[in-house]
């Protein structure tokens, strides 16, 4: 059985201008030990999806789901107390901004042990012992000394490592990493990705990796879901999705990335014209059709999410025709 099953998840945010459909009809499942990457541009609803799973949405946002089950617990109806017992303990989150995700008033050791002492009855010494182990595990030298330091004494990369160690403190079943490398520079990004990949093989960690960076995703993910305007437009095993992208949006995204050896020097990189549609109010047809080079009249109708291969689904009525043309 999958660790996390999400079916037809919608998140609506009531604004004075109307209802903003931040997430509409998202379905996915994550097996144990698997890494699912959710990819999409800013505003595509990927962060909202992860917050909806944790039930940490802003107050104005409303969540509906046909099925939202985490390891046998129905999150859609779980009371807040039950959710609190799960958060941090069974499902943990790594945030995007390591510079602001740590409380400046407490030492690293204090914050690391907080989650553990919140959920388990362990003594200070035992909690600190575990904190030191995990800090060493995430590659922080002189871990014992770091415990007594404040967040501003650490660099961005170190802070993100601390955040990862913090997420691991209770040994959670599921880790949601919301753009964990976005705020870091490229060399540190690579180190953090290596670390996540190592931790995954070492602990058999299940992870949802949220990112807009396909390069990051290709290195870590087993399965990929591409989101556009609050919908999953294509999902499948990472290999098959990167090798044979079916949705015009996925193709566009892949064309934007220069590949060493394959992209000839001097050739312009691909770009997707236009911008994300307004998500306020009811919507009809494919959300991408206004920016799509292959749009046809039938794109304004209902778009089903259909199989496009083994473990590969796409939400595009033109996918078949496109495949034939290519």
């Amino acid at each position, binding site marked *: 059985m999958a660790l996390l099953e999400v079916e037809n998840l919608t998140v609506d945010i009531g604004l004075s201008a109307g209802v903003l459909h931040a997430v509409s009809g998202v379905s996915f499942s994550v097996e144990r030990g698997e890494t699912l990457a959710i990819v999409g541009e800013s505003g595509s609803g990927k962060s909202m999806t992860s917050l909806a799973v944790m039930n940490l949405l802003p107050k104005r946002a409303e969540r509906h789901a046909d099925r939202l089950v985490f390891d046998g617990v129905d999150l859609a109806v779980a009371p807040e107390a039950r959710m*609190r017992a799960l*958060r*941090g303990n069974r499902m943990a989150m790594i945030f995007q901004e390591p510079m602001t*995700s740590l409380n*400046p008033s407490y030492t690293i050791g204090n914050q690391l042990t907080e*989650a553990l002492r919140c959920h388990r009855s362990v003594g*200070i010494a035992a909690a600190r012992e575990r904190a030191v182990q995990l800090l060493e595990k995430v590659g922080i030298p002189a871990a014992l000394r770091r*415990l007594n330091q404040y967040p501003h004494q650490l660099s961005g990369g170190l802070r993100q490592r601390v955040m990862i160690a913090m997420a691991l403190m209770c040994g959670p079943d599921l880790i949601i990493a919301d753009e964990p490398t976005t705020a870091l520079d490229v060399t540190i990004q690579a180190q953090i990705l290596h670390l996540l990949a190592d931790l995954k093989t070492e602990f058999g960690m299940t992870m949802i990796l949220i990112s807009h960076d396909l390069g990051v995703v290709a290195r870590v993910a087993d399965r990929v879901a591409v989101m556009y305007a609050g919908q999953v437009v294509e999902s499948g095993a990472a290999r098959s999705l990167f090798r044979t992208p079916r949705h015009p949006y996925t193709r566009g995204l892949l064309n934007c990335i220069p590949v060493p050896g394959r992209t000839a020097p001097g050739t312009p990189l691909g770009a997707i014209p236009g911008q994300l549609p307004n998500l306020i109010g009811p919507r009809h047809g494919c959300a991408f059709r206004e920016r799509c080079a292959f749009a046809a009249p039938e794109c304004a109708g209902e778009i089903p999410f259909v199989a496009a291969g083994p473990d590969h689904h796409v939400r595009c009525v033109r996918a078949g025709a496109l495949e034939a043309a290519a």
Partner: protein
Amino acid sequence: MTAPAPTGIDAATDALRQVMLATPRRGSALLRRSLGHSGLVAGGVMLVAIVAVALAAPLIAPHDPYNQDLARRLIPPIWHAKGNWEHVLGTDKLGRDYLSRLVFGARISLLIGTLTVLISGTIGTAIGVCAGYFGGRVDAVLSYVVTTRLALPVVLVALASAALVGGSLQGVIVVLGLLLWDRFAVVTRSATQQIARTDYVAAARAIGCSTLRILLSEILPNILNALIVVATLEMAHAILLEAALSFLGLGVQPPLPSWGLMISEGKQYMFFSPWVIGIPAAALVCLVLAINLVGDGLRDVTAPENRD
């Protein structure tokens, strides 16, 4: 081949590790920074001196502050040509020793300042933090309460309560405590709004912290430096208000030796014996200045960005 036996150095580092794990270091860095802050040191020395004098009042005071002697009324202080060492700061219109009254008066001022800030700080912080964290309707209702409070003049309320139950030390503390929380509420509300938006509060929710825990251990420590500044300002404010109320006859009643009351009683001798009004006024200025210096210094020293 067996594994090498642990050497003495290994055992020692292991022991050190155990000690470091069990005892998180605290305090020493804060102390070092505090001693480097001249304003805090100056204010702190003054404040500690005044507190010490207040605590040791029965030991220090040369005379009974309530003992009247009309034959020795209005003796000038020692620096005056007619002063004598029997009464270092002279006597008041009823012949009571002025130094003794000043020393006992410090107790009243500090007691009122501390208790008032404790009461009003608790009320104001609770209101401000709730309004700032929960927002929406809670914020609207609490902000309305704050606005209502701001519309009430403190002296008027004190006047009414003095008329109802009579002026007394307890009365002043309760009235000021229940009235001076507005600045606490306003400052903690906006500080809380800022902190509540930060990622580490979201992170705390993501590790399963309860709302109460977030309010107490994530938000409160981060608004503490704003709170300290307001608390010291309000303490000085409360001490001055007590003096004002006592001056008007609505606060502490004679024969208690309140500094405000001493100023009030001295006002009729202002032209011929200016020290009767000057001495308690100078004491009041010193106390308020000391408290404000300490407040400013504490804010500088405890601000998280100043930690090293």
